Structures are given as C-alpha cells and as structure tokens.
C-alpha cells in the first residue's frame, strides 16, 4: 500500500507538533485516493466530499493520540470506507433511487449508442453492487490492500472479504475476468 514511509511518519510527527504546512502535505498526499475511494463507494460527488471531509476531520481530532510509527493511510482509509458504507446504507434506507436509475441506464447503453470509455463502464457496473461489495473492490483495486488488511479494516472475517471479492467480481462478469482472491 502506497503512502506509508519514513517521510509520512515525519509529516505525522510534525503535524502532531503543530505544523500546518506538514498537515497540509499529509492532506494533499491522501486527498486524491481518499476522495476517489469515497466516490466509488457512494457514487455521489457531494456525499463523497462529505465522507472524505469527515474522515480528515476525524483524523485531525485524533491526531494527538495517533502512533506516528504506524502508517497513516490505512487509518484514514478505514474511516473513509466505513463512513462511505454507512452513508450508502442510509441512502438505501431512505429509498433514494434516482442515482441507481441513472447508473443502471449507463450500465446498459442502448444499441447503437456511442461506446463509453472503459473506466465509465467499470464505474457504472461497480455502482450496481451493494455498498459492502463496492467497498471491498475499492479497497482491493483502488487502495491496493490485501484481503487480510481489508478484513481488519472492515472488522469482518477474511473469508467474508474473499467471498465479497469473488461475488463482486462475479457480478462484474462481462467486464472483468474473475481473479481468485488471495
């Protein structure tokens, strides 16, 4: 997983000591992937911003007790993805179906329509999965965690991660070759 290293530890220590510049460097290092991960789970730009923002705020609130010897990324990403799952579940409970309809339409273009870029197809197909399955796919393929790391981050058994990966990739069948989870 990228992002963890001596430089990052130095940034965390400096931010703990009160350096705004180092906090900003840490923020810039992690914003892109965190926002992308949130967006790919929630599929709503405003919600992704809220989720990522809440995660960074939680990180700032807890910065003083963070062990600078540990990698910062997994700590932050765990918050991002869990909040994104919570948001998606809450939206499902509120029966907000508009986004789903749009995504479904994008996932099945009419015959003769111009082909969407591959990334659009994959994102649209991803949106048809449940939040739990989306989260596992995002953690594995965007944030590049191993199934064991994902299990710890989501606080679920490793077998559950493997099965979600398998089912998630099965559901993307037609777009994605199935990879056996490690």
């Amino acid at each position, binding site marked *: 997983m990228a992002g963890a290293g001596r430089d990052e530890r130095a940034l965390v220590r400096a*931010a*703990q000591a009160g350096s*705004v510049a180092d*906090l*900003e460097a840490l*923020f*810039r290092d992690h*914003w*892109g992937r965190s*926002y*992308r991960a949130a*967006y*790919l789970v929630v599929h709503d*730009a405003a919600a*992704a*911003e809220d989720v*990522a*923002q809440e995660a*960074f*705020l939680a990180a*700032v*609130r*807890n*910065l*003083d*007790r963070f*062990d600078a010897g*540990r*990698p910062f990324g*997994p*700590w932050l990403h*765990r918050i991002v993805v869990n909040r994104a799952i919570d948001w998606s579940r809450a939206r499902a409970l509120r029966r907000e179906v508009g986004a789903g309809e749009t995504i479904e339409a994008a996932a099945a273009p009419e015959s003769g329509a111009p082909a969407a870029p*591959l*990334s*659009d*197809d*994959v*994102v649209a197909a*991803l949106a048809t999965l449940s939040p739990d399955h989306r989260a596992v*796919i*995002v953690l594995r*393929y*965007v944030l*590049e965690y191993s199934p064991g*790391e994902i*299990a*710890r*981050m989501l*606080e679920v058994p490793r077998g559950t991660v493997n099965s979600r990966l398998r089912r998630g*990739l099965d559901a*993307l069948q037609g*777009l*994605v*070759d199935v*990879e056996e989870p490690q």
Partner: protein
Amino acid sequence: MSPRDVRSALLSAPVPDELEAQRRTWGVVKTAYAEREPVRRPRRLRLLVALAVLATLVAAALSPPGRAVGDWLRDRVAGEEETQPALVRLPAAGQLLVVSGEGPWLVRPDGSKRRLGDYEDASFSPSARFVVATRGRRVVALEPDGDPRWSVTQPDPVADARWAPSPGFRVAYRAGNTLRVVAGDGTGDRLLAENVAEVAPAWQPLEGRTVLAYADAAGRVHVADSEGEERWSAEPGAPPAKLIWSSDGRFLLVVTTGVRHLFYGQGGRPAGILRTPPAHSVLDAEFEPGIRRVAYSAFDGERGIVVLGEERLQRVEGRISDLAFSPDGRWLLAGWPEADQFLFLRLPGVQRIVAVDDVRREFDPGSPGIGEFPQISGWCCSP
C-alpha cells in the same frame, strides 16, 4: 479484461469536482486543526496537562462562575489519570476475558495473557473455572489453559454460548435460528426454542436456578426455565439488542435497538425505563454488582459517554464499545476503539483512570494494530 484493467479503470475514472472539493475540505480541516482540543494527549504532555488542569480547577473553585467550568472538566479529565503502554496488570482481582480477531484471551491479575484458541466468541462459566467458546458449528468448553473439555457440534452455525449460574448445570447457545441447551458436562443437548433473534440468552443469576431470558425473531422477550416452560414474556416495543439481569435476579433490563430500554420485574411486570440522553444510542449496559444501578455507554454519532446511574463518568471522541465491572464493583472497564484503549475507571465517581494503550496489538501480536477492536466478554472471579 484483467484485474489490472479493473484497477486501471477505477484509478483513471473521472471523479467529479475533485479539486474544488479538495480546496473546500482543506479550508475546513485547517480550521479544525487550529481549533482542535485533544481529549487525550501523548504521555510526554501529561505532566503539563495535569498542571494546567490543576490550575484551572483552582481557578474554577475560586470563582463563582467556576461551577460550570468544573462540570465541564469533570466530564473530560475527572480522576487522576495514568497510562499504561500495555496491559501490565489488572487494577482489581479477577480474570478478564477478551475476544479479539485472534480468538479469546484470558488475562490474569498480573497482566499475563493466554490465548485460548481459534474461537469467535467466548464467555465465562460461573466462578471462571471454564470458558465456553464457539466457532463455526462447534460449542466447546475450555479449561483455563485452552484445553477442550467437551464439545457439541450442530449442523448450523452456533453463537452466544452462556453458562448458567452456579453450580453451572446448563449451557445455552444459539444454533442457526434456534436456542439450545446442553448440560454443563456436554451431555443431553436439546432444543429449547425456535425462531430466536441474534441476541445472547441471559441466565437469571440466582444460584441453583436455571431460568433464562431470550428474544424471539419477532422482537418479543421470553423468560423460561431450561426445560422450555415459559414463565413470562413481554413486548419491549423495539428489537432487543441485549438482555441483562440485575445481580439479585429481580430485574431484567432489555436494551433495544430503539430509544426506549425497559426494566421488567418479577412476572414480567414493567418496572421502569432506563433514562438516557436524547439522540443517543445505547451500545452496552451492565448492572453494578450487588446494586440495582446500571452503567451504560451511549453514542450520539460523534461522542461517546459512560453513565452510571444518573452520573456521567466519561465523555470521549468516538464510541465506548463495551463495559465490564470488576468483580468487586470498584472498577468499570470501558473499551474505546477510536483511541485503541481500555479505560479502567475507579469508582465511585471517577477517582482514577488507568488507560491502557495499543489494545488491538495487545490482543493481536505482530499485527499493524488496525484490525478489529477486541470485545470485553467478562471480568470474573478468580478460580
């Protein structure tokens, strides 16, 4: 299309509004950083904090408007605080049973720990002579060194095994959507009830009695003996999440997933409502040993509180996941996942706090410490 293509597609997909969102968020984060007010600080600052708190307390005591300041401080830094980098000893007698992703661990008063095996859930027998654990489809009674004494295997996944009070003639557990009972020596396994909820059964803590409470899938609470004969049942109005008896066995507290948490007396007579702050979910609750007073942890979506009776003992960022009283009732242990800490609160009030750091790694040695936060299963009497 290969998994590499999936990765590449997900990393190259356009994400709307990324730079604007980054600019807005950095403004918010920068402001929060400038205004941050850590709840707990690194150890090197403890002395300075203690001096600052002392000075503030003196100022608060000397000024009439200081009462409000004093109340605020009490929530935050009540008690003399001590931090342990590891669980080097328990502050009171008894053994602690903690269940991490690695399995159940028995912690002795001197802090020595033993992992009992690869199980998903565990609880003490009366007097802590055994531990009953579950994994997959097996219920296993374990010696304190982890050696299995007996086991029962079911066709469905099992969970929530609970041993009846002294002399411990029965063990109840869930198997699939049923509740079953087996004798304390592993014999005579039988069905007790069907269509039960995913809630641990709770034995009435009266010596020699084998009466237990359980919840059904429709959200009703039943109290029955180990032969299945129902004593009473009640409808708490929301799905039960936890069933807790007072130590004298006279009251049953039903913590629900809703906002009302009800006490029932003998015969199922409604005996009151647990008073909790508005907009807080109750995450755990325990009766104080020997006293009909309840400690509970609650969460408002941002901060967690620990309340004993009418008194708020602690307020923290994040949740307090589990509570457990020491056997003598003088300490209350609280699990604080966001800080990766166990907090031992010395009662009454909070005279002292012992905060144990790095709990995830404590119960998952060699891990990066970002996994599942351990669950406090019980703090029980010495064998």
